């Protein structure tokens, strides 16, 4: 499982600096876990209070950016907070097969590996 050992380096090549967060009043960097199997890398991030409609996952070039806007308070005292985190994606992911789900304030982002890098079982034909 050579690929497995290489994943961290290739996926999280360099975490982006926080320059994009400048200008927002409350910014949080959510905690993130990475899991993997042969088919995909699964990113899990804590985003409590974020509505699905206020969550954006961008992939621009190799930069994967997660942004969640959270509106707190009610009528009288509304304020907004921003969750922000970005990573540089390595090669070997299928850019068209990125799926996100938000469950109990936790984001599950499935990054499918491209077919080329998936380990393959080679059938041995018995003569």
């Amino acid at each position, binding site marked *: 499982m050579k690929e*497995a050992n290489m994943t961290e380096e290739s996926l999280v090549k360099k975490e982006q600096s926080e320059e994009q967060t400048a200008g927002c009043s409350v910014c949080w960097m959510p905690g*993130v*876990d990475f*899991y993997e199997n042969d088919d995909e890398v699964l990113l899990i991030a*804590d*985003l*409590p209070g974020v509505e699905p409609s206020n969550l954006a996952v961008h992939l621009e070039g190799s930069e994967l950016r997660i942004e969640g806007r959270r509106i707190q308070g009610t009528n009288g005292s509304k304020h907004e907070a921003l969750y922000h985190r970005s990573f540089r994606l390595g090669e070997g992911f299928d850019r068209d097969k990125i799926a996100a789900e938000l469950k*109990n*304030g*936790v984001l599950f982002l499935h990054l499918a590996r491209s077919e080329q890098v998936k380990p393959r079982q080679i059938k041995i034909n018995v003569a």
Partner: protein
Amino acid sequence: MLTLWRNWFAPVQTQYYTNELQREIDSLFEGFEPGAFFRAWEQKSWPATELREEVDSYVLQTDVPGVTREDIEIRVENNILTLKGERKDEAPKGFKIFRKERGHFSFSKSYRLPAQVDASRAEAKLDKGVLTVLLPKTPEAQPKQIPILVA
């Protein structure tokens, strides 16, 4: 305003009150030395919690991402509100971990409710990983509109 809240909703540390004397001493300071409650609040400020005052209620909001309803316990006893919860940390089936920042957590937070709260009408909800406890004010504590009679 924040200081006022902190006094009212003085967070209680369970291990703090090991004996009645300590409790007496603490109660002497209640309302007089906000600093002590500030410190207690800071210590108990995880998970992130926000307390707001609305016209007819107080709203206590705690971030508990990934915690399910079954893993939360909310109680009011002797006018002390206790929130307890736990997040189990299980690797998704068939996956291996390679980077970990989140994890298992458990919390227990207690707050002494001010007299202005009618605890019998308290309500809680869990939505998008945020636990919200609504603490209605007693009728006496709610603002009153005074009608102006036209002579």
